[in-house]
């Protein structure tokens, strides 16, 4: 069963993602900010990471860069949450090493579809 890490400082978003992906059969863990995300990613073995960009302590962009520096996470798909209008953010995130994105507000079914697609299920 593939495992997914969701990184977001908003408990309600994490919960939404968790519910949507768990019911699809994924095992979902949570991190509350970028630093927590790096720590959990190092400690676990995740097949996919979904992250918000706007977080305290360490934001999403920095986290993605940190993760990509490490061989262990070099090939892990990372999806980020973005608002439709922010093309600049998207470019930065991609440059930082993100795999794909999801626009907010997102429909949980959309999330599942994209995760399935990226993980090839």
């Amino acid at each position: 069963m593939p495992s997914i890490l969701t990184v977001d400082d908003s408990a309600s978003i994490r919960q939404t993602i968790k519910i949507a992906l768990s019911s699809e059969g994924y095992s979902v863990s949570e991190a509350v900010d970028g630093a927590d995300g790096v720590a959990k990613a190092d400690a676990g073995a995740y097949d996919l990471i979904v992250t918000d960009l706007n977080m305290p302590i360490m934001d999403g962009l920095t986290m993605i860069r940190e993760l990509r520096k490490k061989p262990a996470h070099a090939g892990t798909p990372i999806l980020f949450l973005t608002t439709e209008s922010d093309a600049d953010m998207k470019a930065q995130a991609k440059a930082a090493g993100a795999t794909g994105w999801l626009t907010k507000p997102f429909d949980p079914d959309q999330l599942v579809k994209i995760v399935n697609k990226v993980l090839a299920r």
Partner: protein
Amino acid sequence: MSSTDPVEIFRVEAQELLEQIEQGLLDLSHNPGDKELVAAVFRALHTLKGSGAMFGFDALAGFTHHCETAFDRVRKGEVKATPDLVSAVLNAMDHMRALAEGRPCDAAVGDALLVELEHVVAAAGGAQTPAPAAAATPAQPARDPGLTTWRVVFTLAQDVLINGTRPLPMLDELRGLGPCQIRALIDAIPPLEALTPTNCHLGWEVVLTTDQPRSAIEDVFMFVIDDMTLEITEVKDSAADAVVEAAPPVASAAQPVADAEPHPDPAAAAGGDAKAARADASVRVPAQRLDELMDRVGELVIAQSRLKQIAGASQDMNLRSVAEEIEHLASELRDSMMSVRMVPVAQLFSRFRRLIHDLARDTGKEIDLITEGETTELDKTVIERLADPLIHLIRNSADHGLETPEERLAAGKPTKGRIILAARQAGAEVVITVKDDGRGVNRDRVRAKAEENGLLAPGAAIGDAELLQMIFQPGFSTAAKVTNLSGRGVGMDVVKRTIEGLRGSLELSSPAGEGSQVALRIPLTLAIIDGLLVRVGTARYVIPLSAVEECLELTPEQDARSTGRSVLTLRDQLVPFMRLRSMFDTKGPPDAYQKIVVVSTGGDRVGLVVDQILGDHQTVIKPLSVFHSEVGAFSGATILGDGGVALILDVGHMTSEAAQTSPAPLRAAS
């Protein structure tokens, strides 16, 4: 059980975000140039808007969006954070709160607030840009009837694998659209020496027959479309089952691979090291779980005391040493639990800044709120219950205590009235005071009201302190007219009851010319305390150790000498003492050598005479039913190691009893 419903979780989050925004705005009104504050407020507004839209709070998201846009412009330097701008958003807080709580809202109110915001933004330097609508939902691809065969040829950027993109799932996805024939293009693979294994050197040619539209094929590459070469051509002849023709060399309209080097990102610098706004490395735990944990610790402590008893009676040294270790661990666990639940009162005090701001506006008075001792900590549940009483006291001060600027000037005081909110720890209690430098308590008015309500016989003599206590009686109100602010039926008597419900006490003082002050004393811990177990006759009682000053022996000579008197000399000081045997009407002869436990609270001391001191006891406080808490002498009870019950003495009650010359045996109210 904590809610697992994201909408419920969002409701809580929304309140926290609104709180953060409000505090940030208040801070910003003092420091308009602070970029960090602007960024913090923007982030919170941004999150509120985004999550609001996610969970169906469309009105909230729509409204917040405008505030967010305004702050985005400030953040980018297009517009300045003028006091008016800050005020405009601050004024919108209540409306946003109402939207977040799902309360019915007047759209006109919202519109008016937004118009004000628009004007203020324009004045601050930016022409208002029309707010873009929320994210559009992805359009549904139109169903293309019939089958089409496409040739899809693509190569990906070299570094896609590093970014976690996997080509194989893409091919699977294409297969999912319809039958495919796939051929890998290996021309670009360099010789072994030059090969970087993490790079993608492959391209693919796929001939796909599908009834899906072209957009479905493009969707497969949605994340990488900007950095790849992709050619989709319709194959017109019926080559659906034909062998894939030798493909012409891929026409590489190769776009430059995105440079992986990150450009300097201001957001990262701000987010990382510099003061991390309000978030500490903390974990959010539902308060109920803390309560449950507290109960477990309480039960552990009880079980441990039983173990202690058994071990104490045993000759087994191993058992005794383990029992001692467990006692030590239980004590530490208890301390940790206590500190987990402790929160600085700053959390409480910060709510009042907004209150003062509103009170000043509503009363037309100038009010300064000064807070002291904000780092003083209190149990989380206690803090929650203190909020309403404190609000009432503050409102009282603002409404009745403080004078208008004109009156103050006439009285020779500065026009700005002061309300001082202070917290400090005093032994086992936390003392919170609300003090104002207003006109003080009008004794005549209090007297008149007390007589009017039958609380006092006209003309009866009464001490000043007792007169002030009348204010806390139910049904008492000295407000000449009940104002909107403090006359909501939350009387001083409710404040008193709430504080007493926390096993605390409150005291009102108002020396002439010094305004008035209400002091709340709250015991630090509600659940488990260190106690001193004593025996009076055959019954056992617990005295809170924090109140115990010392223990002495009552010699038979002193005993004889002091019959009829109730004071003894202790190191040149007169200390009143009380024989608990008399007070509790204990039967049987007293022990030969009785003990005196000297306790103190709030400066008053009294010696309690007991038969025997049994030792320390980690006391899990169990509440007494209303029938017994009325007695006053006992603040709770606890279960002992042998299953028996020991009542916990209320030291405050004891010391005030001692203030009378000879305490009579406790009589039940008849």
